[in-house]
Structure formats: C-alpha cells, structure tokens
C-alpha cells in the first residue's frame, strides 16, 4: 500500500497502522510498504481517514518514470480508479494540476471517490474518450496507463510457469494506438509521456510504440528504475519492432515479486 501524506505525516500514518496491528515492510519506493493485513484494507481506520491507498508496488513504476514535478500540468488519460493520479498529485505536493480522465462513467465514480477519500485539491476530473481528448492545451507530462489484456496481473501458474494469454475479442492494440497517438499530440514541445500496461503481450507494448514512432517524431527515452527490469524486445514470433523499443522496461513478477508491468518513456522534441 501507499501512505498518503496529505492529511498527516508519514510517521503519524505508520503509527496508526501499527496500532491497528498491521505489519509493514519497507520497499525501494518512497511511501510504498508491503503489508501483512488480515482481511481487506477497507477494515482499517487509516483507510476511512484517507491515509492509505491499497495498490501494488509495480503500479508506482509508470509514475516514477514520468516523474511529475510540482507546478507541472499533467494529464492522466486513463485514470480510473486513480491509483496513479493520486500518487502523482502527492509527488507534486499538490502544486500544479493533474487532469484525470477516463471514458467509463462507473469508473469515474470510483476515481472521484478516491480523490475525496484522500482529500486532494489539485485534480480535475474529465470524461472523454482518450482518442478524442480535446486538443486545447499542451501538457508538460502525460500518463497513458492503457486498458490492456492484463495478464501481468497473474504472477506464476500453479506449476511455476509464466502465464501468458492473448488479448480478448476487443482489438486492444488498435485502441491503445489511438490513445497513445492522441497523447503524443497533447504534449507541449519538450514534454514527456509514459505509456504503460500490465501485460507482457508485445503487440500491446512494443507494437503500439513502434506504431507511434512510424507516425510521429517521437523519441524513446531510457530509464533507470528502482526495481529489477529487462529491456524491451525488438522481435517476437517473427514480428520486428523498432530498435528504440530496447529502451523500454519490462518488469516480470518473478524478478520483482509484484505484478508485471511494461513502461515506455517518450519525449516530444522541442
């Protein structure tokens, strides 16, 4: 879980959690702790007081790669239920603005509930299809935490094998390409975006990035993450991807003991 240091200091939140019998183990990521809790975090006072956000360690990675700064104007194009949105607002010390967008109304409700629970004041919530987000202003940073087939959610199978399954009936890569291209167009010159998924499927990762590199003057940036990672791949089952994809990062559950993630940093030249 992440400690939310908006209404209280980290120390106060830790003391409250310990008084409720939660055992906490620190991680390499600021505010993130591995916890042993009996039952759901929703049974904790700290939850109802908006002092914690239950989320996996890996979900911090796209936000750390984007590195939003106080004063930035940030867009989170696929934001609900708000784990990464609220993490960004916390890192920005609530200075600057985060626009949190999602296209599913039921999920927007979960997003606004989380913003209220944590008490954050610098988030604007919008309800657009990511592909059609209005081109009204240039953002400093944009997060595209894309809808994906999500097999990264599963760790390893019962017999220790890595689970890997193809996307569902919806054409996810087509949706992901549309959203990523619009995100790039929404960046100001010199701005940066992060494209992330919780799948290992190259068609939804390197494939989507290769599409963007073919359509726009985008630069893939390297990144030194706080958890063990592998490079992006440049070929899979006979399909070749742009060599710049090597600078992306793939996080596997067996190396990080958390869910899988794919993270790409992309810059728009000045």
């Amino acid at each position: 879980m992440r400690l939310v240091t908006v209404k209280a200091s980290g120390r106060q939140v830790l003391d409250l959690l310990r008084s409720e019998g939660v055992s906490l183990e620190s991680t390499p990521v600021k505010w993130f702790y591995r916890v042993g809790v009996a039952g759901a975090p929703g049974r904790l006072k700290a939850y109802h007081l908006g002092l914690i956000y239950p989320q996996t360690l890996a979900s911090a990675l796209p936000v750390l790669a984007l590195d939003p700064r106080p004063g930035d104007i940030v867009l989170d194009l696929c934001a609900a239920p708000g784990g990464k949105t609220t993490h960004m607002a916390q890192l920005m010390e609530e200075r600057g603005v985060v626009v949190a967008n999602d296209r599913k109304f039921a999920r927007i409700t979960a997003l606004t509930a989380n913003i209220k629970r944590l008490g954050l004041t610098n988030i604007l919530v919008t309800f657009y299809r990511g592909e059609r987000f209005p081109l009204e202003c240039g953002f400093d940073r944009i997060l595209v935490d894309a809808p994906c087939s999500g097999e990264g959610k599963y760790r390893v199978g019962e017999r220790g094998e890595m689970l890997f399954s193809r996307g569902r009936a919806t054409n996810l890569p087509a949706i992901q390409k549309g959203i990523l291209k619009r995100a790039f167009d929404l960046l100001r010159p010199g701005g940066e975006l992060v494209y992330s998924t919780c799948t290992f499927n190259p068609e939804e990762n390197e494939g989507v990035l290769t599409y963007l590199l073919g359509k726009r003057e985008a630069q893939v940036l390297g990144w030194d993450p706080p958890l063990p990672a592998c490079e992006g791949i440049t070929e899979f089952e006979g399909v070749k991807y742009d060599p710049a994809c090597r600078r992306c990062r793939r996080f596997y559950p067996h190396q990080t003991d958390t869910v899988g993630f794919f993270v790409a940093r992309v810059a728009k030249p000045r």
Partner: protein
Amino acid sequence: MYDFCTTSRKIYMVRRSKKMPLLNRFRIQQAGLPFMRRVAGYLKPTTEAAQRFGFAAKKNIIELHENELKRLCVEGEVRGAWQGADCGYVFLKTASWIWGCGLFLDPGRVVCQLPKSMKRWFAGKL
C-alpha cells in the same frame, strides 16, 4: 492558496495554479475537492473537507471516545455535555483524527452526518 468553484449545490476547493486558466475549455466532472454543500439553506462542510481541513478549526469540534462514535453511527445520535460548540454543523474528533461532521442541537445532542460507508464500517468493526 485555494480558489473556490461553485455549482448550484456544491462548492469545490481547488489548489490555486497559474496554469488553471489553460484548462477552462474542458468539460469538468469534478474540480478539486468538494468543500461545502447547500442543505436547506445552510452550508454543510463535506466529510472530505472536515478530514482535510478540520485540523484548522478553533471551535465547533466535538471530541468523542471511539465507542461513542460507534454508538453515534449505530443509533444516529448521541447526547452529552460538550463545551465550545454552537448549534449547527460540528467536526467529530477521536484521539487526533477528525472523521467528518455531526449536527449539534441544543441541548447536548449530536446527530450523525457521516457517510453510509463509514457508518456501516464503524457499526461493524470498532
């Protein structure tokens, strides 16, 4: 520094930013934090505003023990002799935490204004 933003029923509190005017063109579902709601001609602070900014209140705070807060959640109101509160909305505090609002009525009654999810949880857990 904060700005306030209003709709017919709610007042929102938004952290001030030089860049906010750039975002005027978007259709906004929620701006910042819901701060107050108009209820029958009165302004009621939201639970989230109480939790976030209640620490700054100098009066109209009612301190309860955890089991009193639980009773408030189960029974809907509690009675007691509290000092330093005027009739109207008050903040509910246990130990060092503000949970949300109550409605203080003379003489010595507090009516629960906490959200359903919190009431249910308090009733079951504490």
